[in-house]
């Protein structure tokens, strides 16, 4: 069979989807069965077919599939002729024609002309088939066209799969408290210190933390209303160091005028009391806000 024979093959009228399955094949070197020439397709059905194409590659694939051609060995001249006729048909029916269809027509025409030219003799025997790029694109598109159909066939929620759900009678949603890493505190402190150092008038002095902690503990122990006996602040089981730390803490608190010490007579028991605030803590906060 020659190329001429193929190109003389009648243009197969667009078939309805059922006709795609017809055993119409062109077998190399063998006679082929013709599609009925008098096949009538109502204009509306034709429009539906033409509108269904997802672009030039889809149309080309359809033309190839419909004739049972091998995608790797497309009869370019014939396919080009059919393609152009379909595009003309789509124009005639005033379908919205994407620009890509016209670009493809030009590509096909170019391949066709290159196919007709004698190939330059190649050095290593390797020569590119002018159709190679088109075949690659067609195959690439075809596999994703198939993949889309496969995805469409997957069991789908709400169609093939129904997810179970039960009621919960009492929902008490809570918001957990933020978590803090100790290193975040350290980083915050380091940041403050770095910033504070930029204010020259602040000189941050390092003190043993145990004294600061003990100051807090002493304050907690004391009240503004009643006196506490001074010896009660000390815990002998802490040993000498503990006693010294407490003493330094008390002296520091005294210096900062946060506590009062009272001794009625010499060598009598010393009593300790918190300095009373003039305002309640809430009032103090408010006062601070207005500052």
């Amino acid at each position: 069979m020659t190329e001429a024979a193929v190109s003389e093959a009648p243009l197969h009228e667009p078939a309805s989807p059922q006709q795609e399955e017809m055993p119409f094949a062109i077998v190399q070197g063998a006679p082929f069965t013709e599609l009925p020439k008098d096949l009538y397709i109502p204009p509306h059905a034709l429009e539906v077919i033409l509108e269904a194409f997802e672009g030039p590659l889809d149309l080309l694939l359809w033309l190839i599939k419909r004739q049972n051609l091998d995608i790797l060995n497309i009869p370019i001249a014939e396919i080009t002729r059919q393609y152009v006729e379909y595009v003309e048909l789509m124009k005639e029916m005033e379908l919205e024609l994407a620009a890509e269809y016209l670009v493809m027509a030009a590509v096909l025409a170019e391949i066709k002309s290159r196919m007709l030219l004698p190939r330059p003799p190649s050095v290593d025997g390797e020569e590119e088939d002018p159709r190679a790029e088109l075949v690659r694109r067609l195959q690439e598109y075809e596999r994703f066209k198939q993949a889309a159909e496969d995805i469409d066939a997957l069991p789908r929620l709400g169609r093939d799969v129904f997810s179970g759900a039960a009621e919960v009678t009492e929902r008490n949603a809570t918001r957990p408290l933020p978590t803090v890493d100790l290193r975040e505190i350290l980083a915050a402190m380091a940041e403050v210190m770095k910033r504070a150092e930029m204010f020259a008038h602040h000189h941050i002095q390092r003190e043993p933390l145990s004294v600061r902690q003990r100051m807090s503990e002493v304050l907690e122990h004391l009240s503004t209303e009643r006196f506490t006996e001074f010896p009660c602040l000390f815990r002998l089981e802490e040993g000498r160091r503990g006693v010294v730390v407490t003493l330094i803490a008390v002296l520091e608190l005294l210096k900062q005028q946060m506590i009062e010490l009272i001794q009625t007579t010499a060598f009598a028991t010393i009593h300790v009391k918190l300095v009373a605030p003039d305002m309640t803590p809430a009032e103090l906060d408010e006062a601070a806000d207005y500052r």
Partner: protein
Amino acid sequence: MDVQQLKNIIEAAILAAGEPVSLDRLQGLFEEDERPAPEDFRMALAALGEDCAMRGIELVEVGSGWRFQSRKELVPWVSRLWEEKPQRYSRAFLETLALIAYRQPITRAEIEDIRGVAVGTNIVKSLTERGWVRVVGHRDVPGKPALYATTRAFLDYFNLKSLDDLPTLAELRDIDKLEAELDLIGDVPAPAAQIERIPAADVEPVELC
């Protein structure tokens, strides 16, 4: 249709509906010629309810029909599904906490002095509500400002025996290294935070205070 098959269809349908399903609607699932008798449905529902005795859900009849619900005694676990993501504390919060920890007892004015910016009442309030900070006295200066200190709960939370276990400020010199480490921690949510796996890039940390 045998009882087991009927029970299974009823179970699947009620769970798939996600809302109470009436007896009518259950019957409507069957073509007329295969539809079991109403008493078969009632028997199947009763049997299904009994089967649930050992399960995590129970079958109950409410106004508009039958539904499955989680067993009451499991609600404490189940309701944690909707626990919101824990928020994050602001920098101001952490700095205030750090200053109270390292410089206690300390007044708000002193914190503001060192930080160089005002400290909102809400920060002090959330520190107190969290139980990490408390007022331990008042400084004898005009206004008698409250003195803040950290609590036992603060030490417990950070797994410290005493404030002495806090790293010294001298150890904090390599801030950048510390911050780099913290960035790494930040990417790994705590177990409670893993409720929703939103990619880190999409999450804006919510700031409290």
